[in-house]
């Protein structure tokens, strides 16, 4: 523990010396704030994090990381958080830190690691992923975007959808069909290609919650270098399975890996909107029962995430257990949004305008955008297929390609 304590002290001191005070409490995310006055400081902070390797602290030093173990990285993250600072590199690199990077580390050649990882770790290169297609959603392996062999390059034609951040990304990792005659999972490859080229165009998608980071992406004779084929030719299905496990892992972490993660304050918001009886109980007994059930679900989820980590001896394993956590995190997040909107009554259904508080307006948008959680990254139903097949050993329940 003394090594960790030393690292903790070092991290605390470094953050205090290097984090620009003007950035305290800044919010991130698709609808986070953008303040031109802070941009210069934000760029300074990015450079300092990158020099330290703390944008991707567990990656090897030679690829721009800090070579830390999971427990060490956790300590650094805690100290950054404690100081009111943040590591925004995962956010500004799109799918780079959470999904592309770990998969390149596992499947990439030395040349690919050297060319792609440092730009992600430093927060300079944003990545999107071209996986789903209009006719290939849950049945991803039925995708039809084609890559034709053209000597040193592949020429790519087809359409992707739900490519988050495609309009602002520099690179894309795409699943393409490289063998039209093989069984559907056996003719797919994973290629990486630059977005800034004539053959690539993007179009943002408006969703039920309003503007969104999602795009449609069109490949018309787009070009990918052969040296940017990740994994073996026609083995893209293995690569993407791994990639999606990393996605699930990042989702379960983002939405509730903190101990007894009961949703903070939902009961207080409920009391304010609904009122209490003489004994201090929530005045709506039906809502009270459902709120209690939800808070227990949230706590059980947090405890389970912590238990899985503890049983893996501190190593966060990318495993089938992530499917349990993804569904349970989804359940907790969506129920929380439903309860929040419900307990606010009609006031929780405002779309815009100053008759509604910013919290009320945010909760209705979050409720709507949260419907995507059970669809993306392998839908609720796909996760159950994975649990029944990969964890429980039951036979395949869906048609195999």
């Amino acid at each position, binding site marked *: 523990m003394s090594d960790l304590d030393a690292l903790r002290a070092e991290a605390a001191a470094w953050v205090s010396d290097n984090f620009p005070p003007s950035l305290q409490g800044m919010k991130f995310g698709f609808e986070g704030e953008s303040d031109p006055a802070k941009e210069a400081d934000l760029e300074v902070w990015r450079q300092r994090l990158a020099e330290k390797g703390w944008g991707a602290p567990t990656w090897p030093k030679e690829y721009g990381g800090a070579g830390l173990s999971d427990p060490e990285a956790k300590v650094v993250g805690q100290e950054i958080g404690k100081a009111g600072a943040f590591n925004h590199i995962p956010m500004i690199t799109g799918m780079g830190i959470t999904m592309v990077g770990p998969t390149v580390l596992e499947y990439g050649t030395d040349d690919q690691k050297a060319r792609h990882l440092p730009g992600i770790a430093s927060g300079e290169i944003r990545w999107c992923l071209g996986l789903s297609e209009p006719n290939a959603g849950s049945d991803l392996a039925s995708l039809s975007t084609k890559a034709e062999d053209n000597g040193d390059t592949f020429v790519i034609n087809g359409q992707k959808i739900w490519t988050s951040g495609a309009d602002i990304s520099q690179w894309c990792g795409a699943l393409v069909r490289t063998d039209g005659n093989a069984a559907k999972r056996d003719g797919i490859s994973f290629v990486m290609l630059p977005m800034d080229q004539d053959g690539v165009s993007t179009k943002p998608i408006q969703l039920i919650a309003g503007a969104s980071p999602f795009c449609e992406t069109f490949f018309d004779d787009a070009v990918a270098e052969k040296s940017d084929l990740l994994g073996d030719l026609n083995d893209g299905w293995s690569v993407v399975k791994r990639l999606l496990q990393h996605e699930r892992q990042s989702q379960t972490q983002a939405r509730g890996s903190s*101990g*007894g993660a*009961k949703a903070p304050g939902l*009961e207080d918001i*409920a*009391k304010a909107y609904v009122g*209490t009886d003489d004994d*201090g*109980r*929530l005045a709506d007994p039906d809502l*009270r*029962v459902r*709120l*209690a*059930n939800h*808070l*227990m*679900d949230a*706590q*059980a*989820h947090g*405890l*389970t995430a*912590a*238990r899985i980590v*503890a*049983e893996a*001896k501190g190593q966060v394993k990318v495993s089938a*257990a992530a499917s*349990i956590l993804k*569904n*349970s995190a989804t359940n907790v997040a969506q129920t929380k949004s439903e309860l929040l909107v419900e307990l606010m009554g009609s006031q929780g259904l405002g779309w815009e305008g100053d008759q509604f508080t910013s919290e009320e307006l945010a909760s209705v948008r979050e409720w709507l955008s949260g419907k995507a959680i059970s669809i993306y990254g392998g839908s609720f*139903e796909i*996760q*159950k*297929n994975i*649990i*029944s*097949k990969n*964890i*429980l*050993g*039951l*036979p*395949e*329940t*869906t048609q195999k390609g």
Partner: protein
Amino acid sequence: MAALTEEQNMLKDQASAWASEQAPVLKFREMRDSGVETAYVDTTWASIVEMGWTGILIPEAYGGSDLGYLTFGVVLEELGRQLTASPLFASAYVGATALLLGGNESQQQALLPGVVDGSQILTLALEEGPRHAPENTALAASSADGGYVLNGSKTFVLEGMAATTLIVVARTSGSAGESSGLTLFVVPADAAGVKRERLSMVDSRGYANVSFADVTVGADQVLGKVDAGSELLDAVLDRARAGICADMMGTGAQAFDMTLEYLKTREQFGRVIGSFQALGHRAADLFSAMELARSCHEAALQAIDRGADDVALMSSLAKCRVGEFLHTMSNQLIQIHGGIGMTDEFDAGFYLKRARAVEAIFGNRAYHRDRYARLLGF
């Protein structure tokens, strides 16, 4: 939360092997068919004592091993898998906890070594009605000659026919419905005026009605403080709730394993039924519910061992969530097994019956959901 230690995992294997070899469900079936009044097999109990499991909570000075609550839970879970019937939980877990938390040195010296060697069987005599409601205690303890006289009756007393010593929750002041005014007493089961009557319950375990008619007890038989027994009682009950969750977890996990095995072997329409997506998804739901419930009960036991200040919240969380899982699991055990699950010859019914009995003990889901909300201030 932490993972089980290597020692706990070894004990789990040992208890699992013992239960499946020495006390499998078949033994429980034989016991039920024999109609034995104490509702357990003497040789099974003797073997449990010999394994040392009666001493897991008890300090070495009294012959125990003092290994803590999570360790006891590991054993209870494995016995819960085989529905092993014995006074282990009532006596060495609940009874011992009451003495450890509330007993003075002479009370502990008088009873704990006997709990370890099996010569003493303790039990908590608490309930007076069909629903868990400690504050409704009406059994009266009136002062007399420097001691007390007990009058009233208790019901659904666990292992009540086998018990040698009763820990009786009585009212020394106030009236039924108030949580103040309660006092706990240590009363020999054969004291003059104590009458016991066996209750035949759906899970075939040992329960009794116990009545008290002018039972005289001395001041030295008070466990803890006079009139302030509810604080002690709550602490004992929270430990008891977390403990019975371990038993329930084992019963539910075994029901899950039986169901999963059946899904992989039973064929209909020319394929194993587990290949149907409706059943694959149901199995996935049950497995997820089981994993979430397990985290709650282990966290509750760890909170006790750690001396955490949220034991009450964690125990209610566990009793509610483990109860929910076991309820659903026991119903699905029958449903997925179909007709065979309805027969007495198959064991599924034992698990369903036991599930409902343990769900009710020390408060059902509704009780603990309400309590969880109250503890969180809404």
